[in-house]
């Protein structure tokens, strides 16, 4: 059977440094997977390899059974994979509405058209209004993205990511830099907007991880050392040794 997303013996070297050292991972459609691991373990690199930002040194990435490694980010996106960024990555001089509409356009087949007006694209505008409501930014509709608060920008980031209706969503530390209450709201929002989709998220906050994920992948030094349900991962001796018991995890626990 085909998985929504599958990594096979994926490797990435920067010069002589091995960052990703043979990752195998198979995510079923509709699963929510959290990727955890200490700083520098290669979580973000993994996302960059999957989304086409980086090209793997060797190995394969399959989206719904189709090879996507080595493809350009926009090609991968058109095949139904969308990602957000750890550092907010939106269009600062466009309004919230325009930001979201940009995310919608390709998926509705408007491509590079310059022979029709945006204001007449009823389906795109309706979808954008719906997205505005989903990420609770209706009141900021015409505000430039650069004038939003940090939490609003993060919400917009999610909105742009899901706008194209991709079936596989990658969220890179969606709650980074948020306060505890903001984080709680935000997790609820993420759950809402990704219903029925395959979700991969990099997360540091253990509370979030255990609340959000069906499965957890633990990445340490460029390898997936465990990939299982939260309870099983918690009980996994290797994980406890390598990650949860480490000083990093202690610091994390203390920090939140």
């Amino acid at each position, binding site marked *: 059977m085909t998985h929504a997303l599958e990594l096979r013996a994926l490797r990435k070297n920067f010069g002589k440094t091995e960052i990703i050292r043979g990752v195998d991972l198979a995510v079923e459609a509709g699963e929510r997977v959290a990727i955890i691991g200490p700083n520098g373990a290669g979580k973000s690199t993994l996302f960059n390899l999957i989304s086409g930002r980086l090209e793997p040194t060797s190995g394969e990435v399959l989206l719904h059974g189709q090879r996507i490694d080595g493809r350009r980010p*926009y090609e991968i996106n058109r095949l139904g994979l969308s990602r957000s960024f750890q550092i907010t990555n939106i269009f600062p001089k466009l309004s919230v509405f325009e930001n979201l509409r940009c995310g919608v356009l*390709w998926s509705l087949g*408007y491509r590079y058209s310059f*022979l*029709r007006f*945006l204001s007449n694209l009823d389906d795109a505008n309706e979808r954008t209004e719906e997205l505005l*409501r989903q990420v609770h930014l209706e009141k900021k509709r015409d505000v430039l993205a650069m004038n939003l608060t940090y939490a609003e920008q993060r919400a917009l980031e999610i909105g742009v990511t899901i706008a194209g209706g991709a079936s596989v969503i990658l969220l890179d530390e969606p709650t980074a830099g948020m306060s505890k209450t903001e984080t709680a709201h935000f997790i609820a929002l993420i759950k809402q907007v990704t219903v029925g989709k395959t979700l991969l998220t990099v997360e540091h906050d253990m509370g979030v991880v255990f609340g959000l994920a069906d499965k957890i992948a633990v990445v340490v030094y460029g390898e997936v050392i465990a990939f299982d349900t939260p309870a099983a991962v918690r009980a996994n001796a290797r994980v406890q040794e390598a990650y949860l018991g480490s000083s990093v995890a202690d610091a994390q626990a203390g920090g939140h």
Partner: protein
Amino acid sequence: MTKNVAHDGFEPVGSPAGHAERARASQPVAYYRFKPWNIGRVLIWTLFAVGLIVAPLIFRSSLALTMLSQIGYLVIICLSYNILLGQGGMLSFGHAVYTGMGAFIAVHAMNLATKGAVPLPLVTIPLVGGLAGAGFAILLGYVTTKKSGTTFAMITLGIGELVAAMSLMFPGFFGGEGGVTTNRVYGTPFLGLTFGPQIQVYYLIAAYCFVSTALMFAFTGTPLGRMLNAVRDNPERVEFIGYDTQWVRYLAFIIAGFFAGIGGALASINFEIVNSSDSLSTIRSGGYLLFTFLGGATFFFGPMIGAVLLVLASVLLSELTKAWLLYLGLVFLFMVMFAPGGIASLIMMNLRVARFGKFHRLWGLYGALVLTGAVMVVGAAALVEMIYHMQLNAALGPKLNFMGVELDTSSVASWAGAAALLVVGVALVEAVRRRFVAVWGHAQEEIELEVKRRETA
């Protein structure tokens, strides 16, 4: 478009099915489309058209007509340049390649048509130029738009130099140092117009100016136009929402090339001569950049102001003083430092203040700024003119006429007087400026609060 033809402009958006779906989402149908006529927009475009039509009736001298003609095609060129700079974030140093090539192809098309080799009436020549501009943009733009930012700027500079240098190697096509001449009066008159008299040429330019401006404005409201803004803001993110950034830039580059070619062709019709060392030069490209920036790249209409300034500076200011390029450079310098959004942004910022009813506080300060600024400028200009006089016209004696006053470069009094004016002017301007900044900042704070209040209300 066809979807809405049957409606009178007032209709709930969405099908009955969509209705039910939204009702389930506990959100009422939140918006209606009601914009059958955008009154403000119609008014502005009507005013623009009327302005183009009546301008030569108000400014009747032949100099004015020459200037109006130049403004007409420079508006097209500066707007086309702003598709790259303002809308796409592409700093091009080679826009003259596309205006210039449009002009050369147009001249050759006119000459061929005169011989009867091609059936092209004069009114279609700008389109020929436009297609030439687009064609060269297709040819050269693919390499140019491969990268954005600094790399893009460097490549445009290189290609600009390349084309300019190459033009001297093909005198058959580019006419060498002397350029290529033509005669715009050929064939059968179009609706009784021979396009011999300048006024007829002006109206040809004005017609193309209006249509091109409208088309370029329409472009800003299309999917490609919006994605171009997105590419300007954050090219990396665009790649992750399904768009190939190079393709977006390339298509925009071709469209800009098309309108640049139209502008170039109109210029060649206007002057009946094209010269490669002028039309294709990097200096020309730099001029488009400079005045587009001065007019304001962040608003659609900014480059139109830039085009007007370009003609005023190159025709009038250059008549008034030999030091006009120095003044121009200083203005550009101050603009980059204090108002990077150009004149258009200054206008829009003040309109915003006026819309919130706070402009009355600024009248006096603006008056004071103008007066004190005038003192400063007169002082500085007197010094500059005296220095220029010593350098260029020393043989004519030490005396020169400056704004009706006789200055003497050999007398201490002239120098001291000018310097005193400058010092006093600078001091006064600085005093007024501080007061202005305080009042302006206060008004902005009040506006921000007002905006917040409206948002929450």
